[in-house]
C-alpha cells in the first residue's frame, strides 16, 4: 500500500504541508483542519503526526464507516459515521483528527498533495507491505 513517509532530518518546519492538506480537503488554510500535523516539542527534531494506514480504527468503528479500500488505504464513509469518535481515542498514533465544524473525524488518505508542495522534500509517498509507525523512514 502507498503511505506517507516523513523525514525529520529534512523537515524545516514551514507547515506548508498542513496548509496544503486543509486546502485540498477543506478548501481553507487552517492547520486545525489538516490531516498531517508537524509538532515542535522544543527538544529534539520536529515530529509529524499522520495516519500510517494501520487500520486499528476499523475494528472499533461501530457502523463500518471506516474501511480499507482496494489500495489498502483506510477511509471513512461519512454517510455511515455517527461521530462517536471511538477511532479518535483508539488511534495508536493520535492521527485521527476532529474539528468543531463537523461531526465526523478525518485522516490522511495518502493523497500525496503535501508531498508535491513540501519545499524540503521531507515527505514522500512510499510503497509498503505493512503499516509502520510515523517518522520511521522506509
Amino acid at each position: 500500500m502507498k503511505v506517507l513517509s516523513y523525514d525529520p532530518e529534512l523537515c524545516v518546519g514551514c507547515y506548508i504541508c498542513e496548509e496544503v492538506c486543509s486546502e485540498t480537503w477543506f478548501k481553507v488554510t487552517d492547520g486545525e483542519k489538516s490531516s498531517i500535523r508537524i509538532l515542535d516539542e522544543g527538544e529534539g527534531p520536529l515530529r509529524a503526526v499522520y495516519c500510517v494506514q494501520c487500520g486499528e480504527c476499523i475494528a472499533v468503528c461501530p457502523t463500518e464507516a471506516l474501511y480499507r479500500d482496494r489500495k489498502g488505504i483506510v477511509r471513512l464513509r461519512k454517510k455511515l459515521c455517527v461521530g462517536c469518535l471511538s477511532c479518535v481515542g483508539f488511534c495508536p498514533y493520535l492521527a485521527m483528527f476532529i474539528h468543531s465544524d463537523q461531526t465526523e473525524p478525518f485522516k490522511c488518505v495518502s493523497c500525496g498533495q503535501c508531498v508535491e508542495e513540501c519545499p524540503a522534500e521531507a515527505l514522500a509517498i512510499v510503497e509498503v507491505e505493512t503499516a509502520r509507525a510515523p517518522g520511521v523512514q522506509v
Partner: protein
Amino acid sequence: MSEKTQATRRVLAEYTYEAPPVERGYTGQTLYVNLSDNTISAKPVTDVMKEKFIGGRGFGLWLLWHGVKDDTKWNDPENEIVISSGPIGGITQYPGSGKSLVVTISPLTDIVIDSNVGGHFGPLLKFAGWDGIEIQGKAEEEVIVVIDGVSGRVTIEEAPDAPVDTHLLGHWLIEQLAEKKEDRYFMSTVSAGSGAEHTRIGCLNFSLYDRKRKAPRFKQAGRGGIGTVFRDKRIKALVVRSGPVRGDSNHPADPERIARVGTRLHKEIHDYDDEQNRMRKRGTPYLVQIMDDYDLLPVHNFKFGSHSDTPKINGDVWEARFTQGLPDGCWYGCTMACSHAVDAYTVRTGPYKGQKVIVDGPEYETIAGVGSNCGIFNPDDILEINFYCDTYGIDTISFGTLTAFVMECYEAGILDKEKTGGLELTFGNGEAAIELLHQMGRGEGFGKIAGQGIRRMKEYFVSEYGADPQFLQDIGMEAKGLEYSEYVCKESLAQQGGYGLTNKGPQHDEAWLIFMDQVSNLLPTFEDKAEALHYFPMFRTWFGLVGHCKLPWNDIVPPDNRYTDEPAKIPEHVQNYVELFSAVTGREITKEDLIAQSEAVYNFQRVFNLRLGKGRREHDAIPYRSQGPVTVEEYESRAERYDQQLREILGLDPEGMSTQEKMAALRKYREEQYERLKDAVYERRGWTPDGVPKLETLKRLGIDFPEVVAVVQKHL
C-alpha cells in the same frame, strides 16, 4: 414502512405527527398510548419536569405518579410502563450514553420498579421525536406499537403472525418493518416472551442492530417483572424507527466540550482497559474470579462466598467463548464495549433445540446467579439458561436467586420430587434448572409456582407444605419482594444497607460498598457508612436520570485516581459528567448539583412507595442470610471469623459455647447493627426514624408539591 407486511398487520389506531427537532437533549414532548381505548397523544415536557426530574427515571416516575391511583396494582389497567432515556442519552461521543430507563408498578414488590437498560430504543425514540413513551391500559388482543419518526406515524396494530419469544420476534419485526437494509440500523424493538406472561419475573429485551453480526442483539431491563406487566397489557412489541443518527442528533449546547471529554475517555479505555478490568475482552464476567477470591461470590443460595470450581466459569473462560475484536457497545461510541456475545451457540434443549443462536452475555450477574449460586459450574448450562431466559423474557437474576432458594428448600426436605413434578432440584443440577425454566416458558408445573418469586413461594411452602416460616424467611434472599442480585454481603454491614435501604429492592445499582467497607475498612463508623449510603445511591441514581450507564464511571479509572482525595468516587469521571450535562443542556452544574438532582428524584420515589402503602422502616427489612450465618454449616465455614467477632466485639468466649449459642449471639448483634445503620442512614437522608422523608427535606429539594406533601403528612 414496508407494504409486504400489510396483510398481516391490522391498524387499530393511528396518530400522525411531525417529529420536533431535539434541542439540547430534549424533544419537549412525551408519547402517551392507551391500549384500552386505543388513544394516542402527545404530552408536553414541562419546565418542572426538566428542572426537577431531569429525564429518564425521573420522567418515568413523574408520569407514572400522575397515571396511577393510590391503590393501583401491577395488573390494573391504569398501571403504566414508561420508558425514557434522558437528556444526555443519544450522544455518541462518550461511552455508555444510550441507556433507557423503564418504570412501572412491579408484580414482585407492588411498588415502583426502575430498570436501566442498553440497546438503541431510548435514543432512537428521542430521535423519532419523543423524550419518553408512557403506555397505559390493556389491549383486548395482542398488539404491537410502532413509532415511526421518519413518516411521523404512531400505530397500535394487531400482528397475529408475530411470534412472542424475543429471539424470533426480533428477527420477524426487522424482516417485516425494514424496507431497506439501512432501515435496520435505526430501528429498535422492545419485547418480552412467553415466560414473562406465566411468571412475575418477566424482563424486557431492548434491541440494537449489530451491523457486524448482521443481526439484532438484545439487552435486558431485567429487574422487577416489567416484562410481566408488558405481557399483561398484551403487548408483543414496541418498535421505533428514526432517521439516521448523526454525531449531533442530540443537538447539544456545546458539542466541542463533549468531544473533548469523550475522546479523553476513549483514550483512557484504550490505554488502560487491558491492564485494569479487560472489559473490552471479558466484560463483566471479569468479576467472577475477584468475587470468589474475596469470598463474595454467591454459592449455594448465598451460603458461601467461593467454590473450588469457580475457575470453570470465570472471566478467562468467557474471554475464550466471546467473539473478540468486535465493537460490542450497546450504544454508539461505547468503547468499554462490554456487551459481548457467544456466537453460533447450538441450543440443546426445549422448543428451540438445534437452532444456532447468538447468546447475549452472559454477564457477571447471570453467571453468579444461575451458575455458582445454584452450584452450576458448567458454562454450557449457563449459556442455555441465559439464552432461554432472554428469549422467554425472564430476568436471569431473579431466576438464579429463586432457583438457588428452591434448591436449598429441596435439599432441606421442604420440597421433593413429588412436589416439583419430578425435578430433582439439588444444587448443581443444571438439567433440572433448565427444565424449570422451560416450565416457566410453558406456564406449567412447578415452574409456574417458582416463577411467582421467592416471597410468594415462601407463603406457598408454608401454607401448602407446612414449612417453617422462620427458616424460609431467613434463607429466602428477597427484600421488598425482589430477589437479591449476586453478591454475598454478610460481612459488610454497609452493603447490607446498600441492598436493604433501597427504593426498589435489593439490586446493587444503588450502592456497592463491599470493598470500601469490608476490604479497605474505609467506613468504620455508622456516620461513615451513612454518608456512603447517602452519596453513592444519589450519585448512581443520576445515571438513570440522564441516560447513562454506570460502568464507564468506575470499571475504568484514570491511572492517577488512587492519588486523589476520594478515589472511591473517581473524581475525574464525576467531573466528566458535570461537563457532559452542562454541555448537552446548556445548564451549568457542579458536582454538588448532580447529587441534588438525584436526591429530589430519589426522595420522590420514596414518597411514591409511601403512597402505594410501603416505603417505611419495616419495608427495609432484610433476610438474615444477607446478614450472617443461618445454618450451622455456614457458621462452621467461617468459624474463625465469627468466633473472633464474638471474642473481640462482644467479649464472649466461644470456647465454652455451642455453635447454636454462638450463632444466636452473633445474630442478635448483627441484627442490632442493621437497625442502628437504618437510624444513621435515615438521619443522613433527611428522613424520620420511620424512614419517611421529612417535610423540610422535600422543601429543600424543591419537591414539596401539594400532592407529595399530602402523602408524607399521613406518616409524620
